[in-house]
């Protein structure tokens, strides 16, 4: 149970990366199967050679972004179909990963890793879960922040309406590359953390990872909603934990570990098909009416928005006190028109 939640919180980083490509950019990126292991291998080999595990994990992020860059360039500059571009990078990375690792398996036993550091300070249990949850939430908040910056908003728009954002002078090619780089950088970090958690790097560890990510994103958002970014990323993190718990439950029920990939695939298929079934819509409506499940998630996001609004109000209040009418300044004849016409209407 503890292992499932801890792993789920680490895999939440994978889920956040898949959310960026699959949901935000609308680009199913298969590079992740390769870049996850690249990150794990890079960090593993560095740690074995005595490099600080923080630095090793940070470098795993960097190699992940390079993998994303390659897929991005193949897709945008090479005009290769997105799925194929991801597959090409993923397969190429398999050989590169073997080169990095030097063997198909790199043990990290008796090495100082981020996870051994963690367990030096806290016991495994509630405390370690809380700390890992803090890490997962930090990653989530950074993604939330990024998506609300000028460049992050352009990234969102690239996935939402490419023609529109091009007409506002954004290079959609560049945005896709940015998105893929960040996403695969996250895969690298997650790979590095999983390797340190399990105590070894294995060349096979990334196989089927895209399904883990998709299952977390789809199941999480089906249960916890995806209204605003804040809510969507939270749903994705919770989805990753739920997914691990579901796998744990299946294993406890006596299922063969070899069947887990099939189970993951079936879970994703179910999550994709169920919402199309009319009976499910009735349940969703009923749930909505009672304000259970999705309602709770909506509440949290409303709270956040209300808080943000409050902050805004105080800011503008301060501006008024200082006598700086930043937004109200009629800096264009357009705005003067606006005030004129509304004033006229009120009279």
């Amino acid at each position, binding site marked *: 149970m503890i292992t499932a939640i801890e792993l789920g919180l680490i895999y939440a980083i994978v889920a956040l990366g898949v959310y960026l490509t699959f949901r935000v950019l609308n680009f199913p990126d298969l590079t992740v199967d390769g870049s996850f292991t690249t990150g794990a291998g890079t960090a593993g080999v560095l740690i074995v050679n005595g490099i600080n595990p923080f630095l090793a994990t940070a470098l795993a992020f960097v190699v992940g972004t390079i993998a994303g860059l390659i897929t991005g360039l193949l897709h945008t500059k090479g005009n290769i179909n997105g799925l194929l571009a991801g597959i090409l990078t993923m397969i190429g990375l398999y050989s590169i990963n073997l080169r990095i690792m030097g063997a198909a398996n790199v043990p990290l036993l008796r090495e100082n890793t981020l996870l051994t550091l963690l367990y030096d300070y806290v016991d495994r249990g509630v405390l370690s879960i809380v700390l890992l949850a803090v890490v997962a939430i930090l990653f989530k908040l950074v993604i939330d922040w*990024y998506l*609300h*910056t*000028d*460049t*992050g*908003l*352009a990234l*969102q*728009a690239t996935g*939402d*309406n490419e*023609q*529109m*954002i*091009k*007409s*506002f*002078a*954004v*290079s*959609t090619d560049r945005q896709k590359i940015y998105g893929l780089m960040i996403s695969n950088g996250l895969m690298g970090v997650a790979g590095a953390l999983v390797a340190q958690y399990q105590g070894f790097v294995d060349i096979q560890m990334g196989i089927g990872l895209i399904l883990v990510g998709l299952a977390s994103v789809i199941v999480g958002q089906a249960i916890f909603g995806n209204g605003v970014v804040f809510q969507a990323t939270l749903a994705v993190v919770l989805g990753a934990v739920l997914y691990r718990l579901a796998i744990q439950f299946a294993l406890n029920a006596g299922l063969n570990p070899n069947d887990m990939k099939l189970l993951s695939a079936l879970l994703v298929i179910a999550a994709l098909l169920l919402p199309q079934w009319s009976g499910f819509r009735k349940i969703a409506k009923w749930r909505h009416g009672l304000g259970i499940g999705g309602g709770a998630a909506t509440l949290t996001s409303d709270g956040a*928005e209300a808080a943000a609004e409050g*902050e*805004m*109000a105080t*800011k*503008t209040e301060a*501006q008024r006190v200082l006598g700086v009418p*930043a*937004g*109200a300044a*009629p*800096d*264009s*004849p*357009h*705005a003067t*028109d*606006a*005030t004129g*016409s*509304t004033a006229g*209407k009120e009279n």
Partner: protein
Amino acid sequence: MLKIENVSKTFFPGTVNERKALVDVSLDLREGDFVTVIGSNGAGKSTILNTIAGRIPQDRGQVLIDGKEISKQPEHKRAARVGRVFQDPMAGTAPNLTVEENLSLADRRGAVRGLARAVTGSKRERFAEELKVLELGLENRLKTKVGLLSGGQRQALSLLMATFSKPKVLLLDEHTAALDPQRAELVTRLTKQVVQAQGLTTLMVTHNMNQALDVGNRLIMMHEGRIILDASPEEKQRMTPEDLLHRFTQLKGAALDDKTLLQ
């Protein structure tokens, strides 16, 4: 301001489907010119807009803005100077982003998009102020996802987004054609208002003869990829829809579509 020199474009050259969309077209717009473009289907009206915007590369000729050759630039680079509103009301806005987020995206036209917060309190106030011009109450719906707005509201918002970021050239591609008459009238009125207030150099394609005569200070008629009529402000003022229809019927093989005849 905007200069088009001997631009030609042929689609599917050398095949049975070969179609000459633009034949040696030249056009010169002075700063603040508001030109309406009419013509039958396939006359090359949309192609000329798409050539300026960079969506369709021309075979020959040049496009210049402020004396600077832009015909080699990709679409998104040109968009720093060229604002557009499309025929499809869904095309000009991002449906899953909110009204204020869409405005913020438009606001950064041509500027560096960095890691600053996209929507801030002061920007929000400015956006609300700009939205009041539309008289659609959108200033009270800043946090509404644009996908939830009606077609007319989205098109009015598209127009505002395309113009308030102060482009050098504004391209309107039948932007009122997909709206009901009432909304079309509103968007036409807003167009006049905004173009005049900002003195935008504008090229507007339309199917509607009345609209073509009603707005703008210059009118051109296209047929089979050529400009066959270029009416100066004085000529345009004297023209009636009947005159234009008469010119059309004189053209050999010019087929007016139903939409035009009904108006």
